[in-house]
C-alpha cells in the first residue's frame, strides 16, 4: 500500500472513492449512500440476497468470473481496487439486460424488492463460463437444472416472498448465451484486477488488507486483538446485527499463500482462504465427501465468500464442514512468524467458539490425509434444504473390507459445544460385520452421542433420534430399495 493512495471501487464502470467511509461500513450501505439504491437490505445477515451484487473475481484460470456476493456482509473497504456491477449497471428500463428482460416479462417480480438481488445472482449464473456445457441432469434433482445449463442452486441465497419462485425459475431457464458483444461476457477473458494492499481508518477502527502472508503475520503480531476476516460471512453478521466493532480488522481473503490446493501422495492441502465455490472447482470431485457437503453448505452467495479457514476458525458447533473434516481426519496448519505447526482438527477446538489458535497465528491450510475411505456420507438435518443451519450434521467415512468395518470415522455437528467425533459409535462399528444388526446396535450407541439441546431449530429428542437413523440411512443407501417407475 502506498500512503496517500486513493482508495476506490469501480462500480458499473465508474470509479468511486472510499474516502470518509468508516471501516465498519458494509458495501451495501456504502453503495446506497452513493445513490445506488437498487441493492436492498432485507436481513443484513446474508440470508435473503436482496443486496446481491457482482464482483469480478478470478475464475480459477487466467480470466474473470462474475461472482455474486452479499453486499451486506462485506466491508466496503475490502472492495478497494475491485470491480463491482449492480442491477443498475446491468441494464436500464429502456435497455434491459437479458436477465432483466426475462424476469420482467415472465412475472418474475411482484413487489420488486428482492428483484435486483435475484437479477445479480441470475446474471452470475448467466455468465458462468461452463454453463452451456452442463449436460442435462437426471434423477431427483433434474428439475433444478435448466435446458440451458442453468443451475437453480445459483439462486439458493435469494428469497422472494411474493412469487412462489416458478416465474423466476422460468426466467432462468429461458436464458440464452450472452451476445458476442456483451461487455461483461467479454470482460471474463481478462484477469480480474489483482488484490491491493489497503488500509482504511475511521471512527470505529481500521481495516487493513495485507499484500502477502508475511505482512499479514506482522500485522497480527502488532495487533494481537485484531479480527481476521476472509469472506466476512460470519463477522459481517456480527457487525450488522450485533453491533460488533473491531479496532483492527485484517483482511486475508486474497493472500496468495492461502489460496492454493496442493495434492500430494499422503495428503491434499487446501488453502484456508479459498472460498467454498473455488474449493469445489479446484477439488473437482477429488474428495467425494466434501462434494456432498458443498451443495448443502449455506447458499451460493455465501459459498462465494465463505472460506474453509473461516468455517474452521469460527469454531462454531454448527458449521457444515467440520463434521466432514473430522470424518476425514483433517489437520489444521497454523502459520505464525515462528513457522508452521500442525494440529489435528479433533484437538483444534477447545470449547464453544474457542480453539488452540494463538493470537499471532493464522490458519494457513487444512490437510486431508490420503487415502480416503471409500464409503462416505454427509447428512445435514435442517428445516429447509437450501441455506439453513443444521439441527444436526453427520459425516461418515467407512472402510468396509470383505464385509467387515475396518475403520469408521464419524463427525457430528450440533450435538455439543464443538463439532465432535462419535468415538463410541466408531468403536461399535469397527471390527464388526457391516450388517443390519451391527448398524442397528451402533445406531443405538449413536443416539447417545453428545448432549443435544432443545432449541428453536429442533428438540433434543429429535436430534438424538436422527443421529441414530443417520447410520441406518447409510446402510439403506448402500443397499438401494427396489425402484419402481412412479
Amino acid at each position: 500500500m502506498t500512503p496517500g493512495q486513493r482508495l476506490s471501487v469501480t462500480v458499473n464502470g465508474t470509479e468511486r472513492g472510499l474516502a470518509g467511509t468508516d471501516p465498519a461500513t458494509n458495501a451495501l450501505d456504502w453503495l446506497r449512500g452513493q445513490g445506488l439504491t437498487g441493492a436492498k437490505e432485507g436481513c443484513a445477515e446474508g440470508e435473503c440476497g436482496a443486496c446481491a451484487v457482482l464482483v469480478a473475481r478470478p475464475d480459477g484460470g487466467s480470466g474473470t468470473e462474475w461472482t455474486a456476493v452479499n453486499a451486506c456482509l462485506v466491508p466496503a473497504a475490502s472492495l478497494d481496487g475491485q470491480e463491482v456491477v449492480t442491477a443498475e449497471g446491468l441494464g436500464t428500463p429502456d435497455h434491459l439486460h437479458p436477465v432483466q428482460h426475462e424476469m420482467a416479462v415472465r412475472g418474475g417480480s411482484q413487489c420488486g424488492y428482492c428483484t435486483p438481488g435475484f437479477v445479480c445472482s441470475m446474471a452470475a449464473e448467466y455468465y458462468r463460463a461452463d454453463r452451456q456445457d452442463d449436460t442435462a441432469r437426471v434423477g431427483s434433482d433434474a428439475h433444478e437444472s435448466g435446458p440451458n445449463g442453468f443451475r437453480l442452486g445459483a439462486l439458493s441465497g435469494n428469497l422472494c416472498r411474493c412469487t412462489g419462485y416458478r416465474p423466476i425459475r422460468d426466467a432462468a431457464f429461458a436464458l440464452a448465451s450472452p451476445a458476442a458483444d456483451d461487455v461483461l461476457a467479454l470482460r471474463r477473458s481478462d484477469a480480474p484486477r489483482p488484490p491491493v494492499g489497503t488500509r482504511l481508518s475511521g471512527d470505529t477502527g481500521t481495516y487493513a488488507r495485507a499484500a502477502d502472508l508475511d505482512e499479514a503475520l506482522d500485522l497480527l503480531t502488532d495487533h494481537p486483538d485484531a479480527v481476521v476476516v476472509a469472506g466476512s460471512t460470519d463477522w459481517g453478521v456480527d457487525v450488522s446485527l450485533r453491533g460488533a466493532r473491531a479496532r483492527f480488522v485484517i483482511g486475508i481473503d486474497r493472500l496468495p499463500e492461502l489460496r492454493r490446493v496442493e495434492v500430494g501422495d499422503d495428503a491434499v492441502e487446501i488453502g484456508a482462504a479459498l472460498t467454498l465455490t473455488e474449493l469445489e472447482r479446484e477439488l473437482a470431485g477429488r474428495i467425494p465427501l466434501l462434494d456432498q457437503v458443498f451443495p448443502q453448505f449455506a447458499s451460493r452467495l455465501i459459498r462465494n465468500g465463505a472460506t474453509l479457514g473461516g468455517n474452521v476458525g469460527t469454531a462454531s458447533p454448527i458449521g457444515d464442514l467440520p463434521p466432514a473434516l473430522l470424518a476425514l481426519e483433517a489437520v489444521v496448519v497454523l502459520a505464525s512468524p515462528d513457522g508452521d505447526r500442525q494440529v489435528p482438527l479433533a484437538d483444534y477446538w477447545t470449547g464453544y467458539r474457542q480453539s488452540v489458535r494463538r493470537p499471532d497465528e493464522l490458519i494457513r491450510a487444512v490437510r486431508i490425509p490420503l487415502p480416503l475411505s471409500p464409503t462416505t456420507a454427509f447428512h445435514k438435518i435442517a428445516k429447509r434444504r437450501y441455506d439453513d443451519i443444521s439441527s444436526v450434521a453427520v459425516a461418515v467415512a467407512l472402510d468396509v473390507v470383505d464385509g467387515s468395518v475396518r475403520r469408521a470415522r464419524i463427525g457430528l455437528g450440533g450435538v455439543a459445544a464443538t463439532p465432535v467425533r462419535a468415538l463410541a459409535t466408531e468403536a461399535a462399528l469397527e471390527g464388526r460385520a457391516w450388517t443390519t444388526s451391527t448398524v442397528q446396535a451402533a445406531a443405538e450407541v449413536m443416539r447417545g452421542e453428545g448432549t443435544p439441546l432443545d432449541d428453536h431449530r429442533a428438540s433434543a429428542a429429535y436430534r438424538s433420534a436422527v443421529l441414530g437413523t443417520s447410520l441406518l440411512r447409510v446402510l439403506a443407501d448402500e443397499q438401494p430399495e427396489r425402484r419402481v417407475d412412479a
Partner: protein
Amino acid sequence: MTTLSRQPADPVVGQPIPHESATLHVTGAALYTDDLSVRTHGVLHAHPVQAPHAHAHVTRLDPTAALTVPGVVRVLTAADVPGVNDAGVKHDEPLFPSEVMFFGHAVCWVLADTLEAARLGALAVEVDYEPLPSIVGVREAIEAGSFQGGQPRLERGAVDDAFVAADHVFSGELDLAGQEHFYLETHCSLAHVDEGGQVFVQSSTQHPTETQQIVAHVLGLASHAVTVQCLRMGGGFGGKEMQPHGYAAVAALGAVLTGRPVRLRLTRTQDLTMTGKRHGFHAQWRAAFDGDGRIQALDATLTSDGGWSLDLSEPVLARALCHVDNAYWIPHLRVDGRIALTHKTSQTAFRGFGGPQGMLVIEDVLGRCAPLLGIDPVELRRRNFYTAGQETPYGQVVRHPERAVACWDQVRTTGELAERSVAIAAFNASHEHTKRAVAVTPVKFGISFNFTAFNQAGALVHVYKDGSVLITHGGTEMGQGLHTKMLQVAATSLAVPLSLVRLAPTRTDKVPNTSATAASSGADLNGAAVKDACEQILDRLRAVAAARLGVPGEDVRFEDGHARAAAEAPGASAASGASGASGEAEVAWADLVSEAYYQRVQLWAAGFYRTEGLHWDSTTMHGSPFKYYSYGAAAAEVEVDGFTGAYRLRRVDIVHDVGDSLSPLVDVGQVEGGFVQGAGWLTLEDLRWDDSTGSSRGRLATASASTYKLPSFSEMPEVFNVALLERATEDGVVYGSKAVGEPPLMLAISVREALRQAAAAFGPAGTQVDLASPATPEAVFWAVQQARGAGQPPHTVAVVREGSEGVGVAPERADPDGHPLRPHSEQVAAGRGD
C-alpha cells in the same frame, strides 16, 4: 349482467401484461420509502430503545447519557407528544408506553445524524424496569383466563341433539402456529414538515388514510395538515395494514420537534420483535358424522393468540369463525371465539385474516377423521360440499357452489389423480423408507370486508389536454399488481391504449378517506371507482364527439382510441367507422380531448364505489357480509423420508376461480405466491417464543432470517400447474373479475394433508396420525413414528373417538416414547359413538 361486469370488445383487461413496474424492479430503479432517504438532505435517523422484559413497569427513563453521544440530536419520549400518546385505533397501544407489554417493546426513540449514532445513543439511554408476571403461550392465557375483546359465538341448528343422533363422534385439539409476514422491505417511514406546518410522511403502508389519522392525532393536528404517500411497498401481506402507523407517528413527531426530515426504518430483527404477525390459534373441537361420513355437527372453541393489544384481532376472529365451514355444509354448528391477551407482539392482519386458521380447523378434522371413518379423504371432502341453495352457518346463501365442484373435478382430471394414486401405491409398496401421498383440498373464501363501512373506494382520473391520462386511486401497491390492474381498467373504460395511461402514487391528498388495501378487495373496490370516474369523463366527451360525428350521443362508440358512430346508428353505414350524414368518420382521442378542452368541458373526475347488498351483525354473527365467494382446489403430492421426516413437494396442481381475470399474469402470480406462502406457514415457518421462566422469557427466539426460515427455491413445487377456472364471469364485479390476493394461500392446506397421509403410509393401511403445525421435518418425523406405532407426536393431541375411549383423556403434551397408537380394530366404523 350488470354494466359493471360487462366487458367491451377487445378489452385491455384480460391481457397477460407484466407488472407495471417490472422494468423498474429488475433494474433497481423502482423507489421504496427508504430509497428516498438517501435522496433527502439532512435526514435524522431513528433507533428504538427496546425493553428486555415480557411485562414490566418502566420506573425510570433517563436519556441524559444518550444526549452526550456524538451525533445524537434528541430522544423522543411520552412527554414530547402534543396530541394523543397512542398508535392504534382501539386506544390500547401507547406509542411511548409506561408499561412494557412484550419483550422488545420500544419505550423511547433516539434521533441522530447517523444510524450508528442513534444506535449508540439508544444503548446509552438508562431505563429501570419493575418486572411483572407475564403470559406467553395461548394455553397459559386460557388457563389464566387472560382474554381481550369480544367473545363471539356462531351458532346454527340443534347442535346438542345432532351429537346424540350421530353415528360417529370424535373430539380433538389443534395448536396452529402464527406466521411472520417477512415482507422483504421492513417497516419504513420518512417524515418532514412542509411550509405552514404541513406534515408530509412517506410510509410503507397499506392504509395511508389510517396512518394519516394516527399521525394527526399523535401530533394533535387535523387530518388536513397531514399527508401520507406510499410509492410502493416491498411486500405487505397484511403486515402493513395497522402496524405502520406508530412508526410513521414517531418519524413525524421527530420531524416536527427538530425541523429536520426523520427516517425510521426497522432492521429485520426490530421488525420481527416489534411488529404483529398472523395469529396462532388453539382449537378444541367435537365433530359428529353420519354413517356415510356426512358432517352432522361441529362444536368448537377457537382461541386466538392476540398478543398485547386488540389491534385487528376481533375482525380476524370473526373471519376465522366465518370460514370454519370452508366448502362444507355443516347443518348444526356452534363455534365460540376468544382472543387471548398475551405478552407478545400485537398479532394482526395477515393474508387470509383468520380465514386460514378457521379453515385449517375443519380440514384438520376431516384429515384426522377420514381414516377413523374408513373413507378416503378425497371422497370424504367431496361428499360434504355445499350444494345449491344452502346457507352458511351465518346465514348467507352460498352462491355458485357448483364452481367449487368444477375446480375440484378439473384439478382431479388435469392432475391425473387416478393414475397417480395407483403409481403412489406401487411406490409405497416397494419403498420401506420413503413414502408418497397426494391430497386434495378445496377453498371457499368470502370476499368483502366483514365490516361493511370499509367496502367503499375512491379514484381520481385526469385527462390532460394532450389526451394523456393520469389515474390515482385509494389502493396501495405492495406487489400484488393492483396498479397494473387499475391501468388496465382505465384503458378499457376509456377505450384508449394502455400507453396513454399513467398511475400516480397513492396519497391521502389525492383520494381521501380510503380503506386499507386489504381483504383481497383492492381491485374490486378501486377498479369500480376508477371505472366510475372514467365513465363520467366519457359521458362528457360523448356530447363533443356526437357533434363531430353527426350522430346522437347515445350512438357514439368509444373504441380503440377513437370515437366512432355505432354501426347501427341512423345515417351510418354498416362499415366500421361510418359517420352521420354531416359528420366525420371518426375522431381520434387526442383531437376529441383537445376540442373538449376548448369547449370548456371538465376533463377530470372523481370516481366512487360502494359494494351494495352487504349486511352484517357482529353481535349475532349473522348476515351476508360477503359480496361473493372465491373458489379453488389444489392437489399436492409429497414425498417423505422416514429417516428424518424431511420431505419434498413433488407436484402441485391448482384450479382457481378469479372470475374473468383482469390481468392473468398477475393473477397466476398471486395464486402461486399465495400457495407457497401458505405452504411456508403450514410446514416451515416456525415462530418460537421463549416460554421458560428465565430472564429472556417472552423473547422471540426466531428473530432473524437465519432462524425464521421462509420458503426458498428448494420449497417450490417441482411441478407446479396453475389454471384459472374458465367461463367464470362474476356478475356485479368490475369487468366480471374476482378478488385473488388471499384465497390461494389456503390451497396450501393440501400440502399439510398430503404430509399427514404420507406419514400414515409408514403404518398399516387405515393408520390415523396427528400432525403438529407447522409440519416441520421434525413434526413429520414424529408423525411417522406414530404411524409406525412408536407413540403420539409431541405438540399434538390425539383425536378421541367418543364412546370408545372416553372424552378428553388425551395428554396435552404426549410423550413420544409412550402412548401407543390406538389399535387398528377401533378404526372400523363401530356403530353409534355415544
